[in-house]
């Protein structure tokens, strides 16, 4: 029996008049990697940004439906956005470290929370950097600027930054699209390691990547969830014709 971390129920989303997500319903299993795949413009990034309510910042957005996390609908009015986003971390397409020191990047979320205990802060920063496989490369220069790191290192720093608030879920929005193959491989391995402690939801338009690392896959097409299931099954015997065509490279 798989425990579910996030439940998406009849999620609909509009930007202005345009409907981007249509009645999306599925459950994301706990401590697994769930990939969201689909052609560009299918709404996969928009769906991902629903989990930490990043779409709220866009003008003219309208959202209906529920996303249940820890038994609560995150779209209820009483939801505290700040604690939601600490529970649901996010890593973006392009590495986006702050122009601050490596240490301050990782400490950012805790500082915002008003975390004062210096020793504990140092411990958490160290642990997060270790968990993001960056510690050995930066332990001697925690005070240098994050901008001096390579692209792959910056992306791992962003992962460490997201881990520092001890999230239950981490959202990856095509985290390797701006990286070279070597850095990509490292991030892929890292996300497999991460699922021991957090639930990973990853958007990708790299089908190979989804097949390599994900346990479950959701295929989204024109805002509809076409198919969702165990990755092995979905990639080998897709149930829907559209999934089959997409995987076969007929469109995308």
């Amino acid at each position, binding site marked *: 029996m798989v425990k579910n971390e996030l439940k998406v129920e009849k999620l609909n989303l509009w930007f202005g008049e345009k409907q981007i997500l249509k009645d999306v319903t599925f459950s994301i299993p706990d401590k697994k990697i769930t990939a969201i795949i689909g052609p560009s413009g299918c709404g996969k990034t928009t769906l991902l940004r629903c989990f930490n309510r*990043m779409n709220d910042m866009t003008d003219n957005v309208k959202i209906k439906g529920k996303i249940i996390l820890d038994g609560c609908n995150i779209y209820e009015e009483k939801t505290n*956005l700040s604690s939601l986003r600490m529970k649901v971390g996010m890593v*973006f397409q392009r590495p*986006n470290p*702050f122009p601050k020191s490596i240490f301050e990047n990782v400490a*950012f979320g805790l500082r*915002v*929370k008003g975390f004062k205990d210096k020793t504990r802060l140092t411990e958490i920063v160290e642990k997060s950097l270790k968990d993001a496989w960056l510690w050995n490369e930066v332990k001697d220069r925690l005070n240098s600027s994050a901008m*001096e790191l390579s692209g792959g290192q910056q992306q791992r720093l962003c992962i460490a930054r997201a881990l520092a608030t001890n999230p239950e879920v981490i959202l990856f929005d095509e985290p390797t699209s701006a990286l070279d193959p070597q850095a990509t491989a490292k991030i892929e391995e890292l996300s497999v390691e991460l699922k021991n402690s957090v639930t990973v939801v990853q958007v990708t338009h790299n089908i190979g990547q989804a097949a390599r690392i994900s346990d479950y896959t959701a295929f989204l097409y024109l805002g509809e969830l076409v198919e969702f299931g165990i990755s092995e099954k979905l990639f080998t015997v897709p149930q829907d014709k559209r999934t089959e065509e997409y995987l076969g490279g007929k469109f995308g």
Partner: protein
Amino acid sequence: MIKEKLFKYLTLTAALCSVVFLFGIIFSIFKEGYSIFAEVGFFKFIFGRSWHPTHYPPEFGILPLIVSSILVTAGALLVSVPLGVGSAIYISELAHPKGKEILKPIVELLAGVPSVIYGLFGMAFLGPFISRVFGLPVGLNALNASIILGVMVVPIISSISEDALNLVPRQLIEASYALGANKWETIIRVILPAAKSGVISSIVLGFGRAIGETMVVLMVAGGATSIPRSIFRPVRPMTSAIAAEMGETTMGSSHLHALFGIAIVLFVITFISNLITEWVMRNRGKNGA
């Protein structure tokens, strides 16, 4: 062919004119002014505590004028930095698009008001107001000049800071929100630090504008030539000394050379502030830490 060549050389001449003007100005103020440094001595000129150019024997110490300029400019920045940076933050980050559309041109309109009108306002309204509130015989003093200059500088600081704030990459702002920061924390911890160099150069530019402004200080600063002991004293900044006294001098007199000497000091100060702006802008984003 000939027409094209002619056109090229005509426009080249136009462009070279600026260079000629700049060097002409530098050359002439140095030519007229350097002799005062020799006559009085560099340190006695800059650090001399009394400016009595028409006494016998005359005294050419411009420290009171320099201190007046610095006092008034610092006061102006105390007014304009919070107002300018504050309105830039509001316009770029917080205002509703409609509010932005109205507010931005109004702030920029402030830059188009002729300085003599600011001066009139300071003389006719702010002066009497200051004298009543603080119980002073007259309200034309360093405080008055600081406030009026401060308001004049607001649009410079506001519009350049706003540009800098708008240039902060969207991804950084999203990263901050995604880590649980709210709008206010994002502005303080991410947007302002990332726009730091632009905000600093807007302040340095504002400084250059305030220290070089003449008409306002001539009208509202009061004109006393002693070293001011408080912001309520009338003062005579360098610019107003030059403008007020030029008409009293005779050709070739030491007083005239001294006024050019003040011009050299003023020119060097504004030149340095321009260099700082250049330097800050060039280093922007190189290492943000």
